């Protein structure tokens, strides 16, 4: 009832959507399409304006494919002017993987299934070449020998590159994550829950990606509100990846990430108390197809938390819907950031009996809602979680 009132108030004040758009909201064509259709926006609007002929959409550095040798990956690229031409898929060292025209839609968004050869475990870059054009991404494929259950996951959030000495601290965080394998098992993958660039600027994003490329594990990246600042979302779509939402599998564990958008406009082109304007209806519709009651064990991740003691949460027009979507028995954990402080809640939003530092969560309380503190606040930090069929635990690691 309170949420309904809050939403009604926000609708009256802001309209909760297009028609009242400050300059750092997503571009109007993207908002019209819906954030989930970001690749279509890239194909129709962004690539022609920027004069780009080919974009590798998936897998990429921030949206990798984790597979065992011999398994299949879906390679997606966008080439509106070259859609009828065959593509060559290779590793970034030139090792050939596949040829084919793939299956393309009317916007030149193409897919090709590629069977992975018997590569050694590790991270690999991938390239797609079409009509004399080539697009590559490092660390796009991770070859593993087995899928661990539970998976060991590093949760990092809020790099805010460009703010004070955040870049230095974030570099220390990356180095610390890379060193985990020296004293124990290497984590299976990382999840970054947004706010890479403090002002949404290209040079800030470049520093962030340079650091992320140093990671020795695959990493999944979603946007935060700061990534939209100063029209930064266009740069994100080209530099990080053209898909704002993602669904990936790590063995039997489903990973679902969405962009929770920019800060909600208060009607005067000022933001509210850090609530988001998303996920929008296109994302919620898509989420309903992947967060189904019969889905495999799932981790959902996005920037704005559903639960927080203040209003800095998922926006009032999406919160109830998103909360209902993730509150299923098969959703093990919901990871977010944004508030620059650690937060821990159970499925009902109750934080009691759960330590902020480290704890194991009983299955009755799943999904765990884990909010990671800002990684780049000195001395820096990140969380390590174990999430699987029958276990959910977490631990916050503060750098010395």
């Amino acid at each position, binding site marked *: 009832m309170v*949420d309904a009132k*809050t939403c009604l108030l926000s609708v009256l004040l802001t309209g909760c959507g297009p028609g009242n758009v400050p300059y750092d909201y997503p571009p109007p064509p993207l908002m019209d399409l819906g954030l989930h259709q970001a690749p279509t926006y890239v194909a129709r609007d962004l690539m022609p304006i920027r004069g780009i002929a080919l974009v590798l959409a998936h897998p990429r550095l921030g949206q990798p494919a984790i597979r065992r040798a011999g398994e299949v990956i879906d390679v997606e690229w966008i080439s509106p002017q070259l859609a009828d031409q065959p593509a060559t898929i290779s590793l970034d060292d030139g090792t050939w993987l596949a040829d084919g025209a793939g299956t393309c839609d009317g916007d030149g968004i193409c897919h090709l299934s590629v069977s992975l050869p018997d590569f050694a475990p590790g991270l690999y870059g991938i390239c797609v070449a079409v009509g004399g054009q080539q697009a590559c991404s490092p660390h796009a494929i991770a070859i593993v020998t087995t899928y661990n259950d539970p998976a060991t996951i590093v949760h990092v959030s809020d790099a805010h590159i460009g703010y004070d000495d955040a870049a230095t601290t974030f570099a220390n965080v990356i180095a610390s994550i890379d060193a985990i394998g020296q004293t124990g098992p290497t984590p299976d993958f990382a999840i970054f829950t947004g706010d890479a660039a403090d002002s949404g600027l290209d040079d800030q994003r470049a520093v962030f990606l340079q650091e992320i490329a140093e990671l020795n594990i695959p990493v999944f990246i979603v946007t935060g509100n700061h990534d939209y600042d100063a029209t930064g979302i266009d740069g994100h779509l080209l530099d990080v990846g053209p898909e704002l939402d993602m669904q990936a599998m790590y063995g039997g564990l489903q990973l679902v990430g969405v962009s929770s958008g920019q800060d909600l406009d208060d009607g005067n082109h000022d933001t509210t108390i850090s609530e988001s304007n998303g996920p929008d209806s296109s994302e919620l519709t898509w989420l309903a197809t992947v967060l189904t009651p019969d889905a495999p064990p799932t981790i959902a991740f996005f920037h704005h938390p559903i639960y927080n*003691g203040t*209003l800095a*949460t998922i926006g009032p027009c999406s919160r109830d819907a998103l909360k209902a979507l993730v509150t299923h028995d098969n959703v093990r954990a919901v990871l977010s950031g944004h508030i620059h402080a650690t937060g821990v809640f159970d499925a009902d*939003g109750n*934080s009691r009996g759960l330590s902020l530092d480290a704890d194991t969560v009983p299955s009755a*309380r799943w999904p765990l809602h884990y909010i990671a503190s800002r990684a780049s606040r000195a001395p820096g930090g990140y969380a390590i979680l174990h999430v699987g069929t029958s276990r959910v635990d977490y631990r916050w690691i503060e750098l010395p």
Partner: protein
Amino acid sequence: MDRAAVVVLLASARASADPPLAAQLGGATGIGYASLAGAYRDDNFVAVRASVGIGPYVAADLRLGEDLDRVEPALGLGARLRPWQGECWLARFSPYVRGEVAVVGASHLGSNYDLTLGAGHWGHFTPRVRWLGWYAEVDAIARVGEVQTWSAHVELGVTFATGSFWR
């Protein structure tokens, strides 16, 4: 008419000279229960309470609380009622009952409320120093709204009061 005005003025002057005000600073902890979590040891809290005495038996309270283990502010309005004055007990002591409604930033600001019923004991360390006292309370708290929990807290603290508070 003039006599009435004089009485009002005298009362006002007396009130402004010694208003029945009190402030309390305390800490609390306890146990709790929720359907998913089961029984648990609750967090630790700190609270500041500003009170206005309404006659010798009632006080209206404005309370600010904060969870010491996580960010969870609370703002409450309540009342305390003491069934008798100190002379019936000991001059320095006074039991009371209290009730409070608080908005609490538990899972989302504005989505959770704490309803509290409690019993406490309030008194002075020494009869000569009436501005400084102590209090101890046992509270039963029902959290309603998005999060639904039950908890029982013990709260201990010190109190600072003007001479006319609960006299």
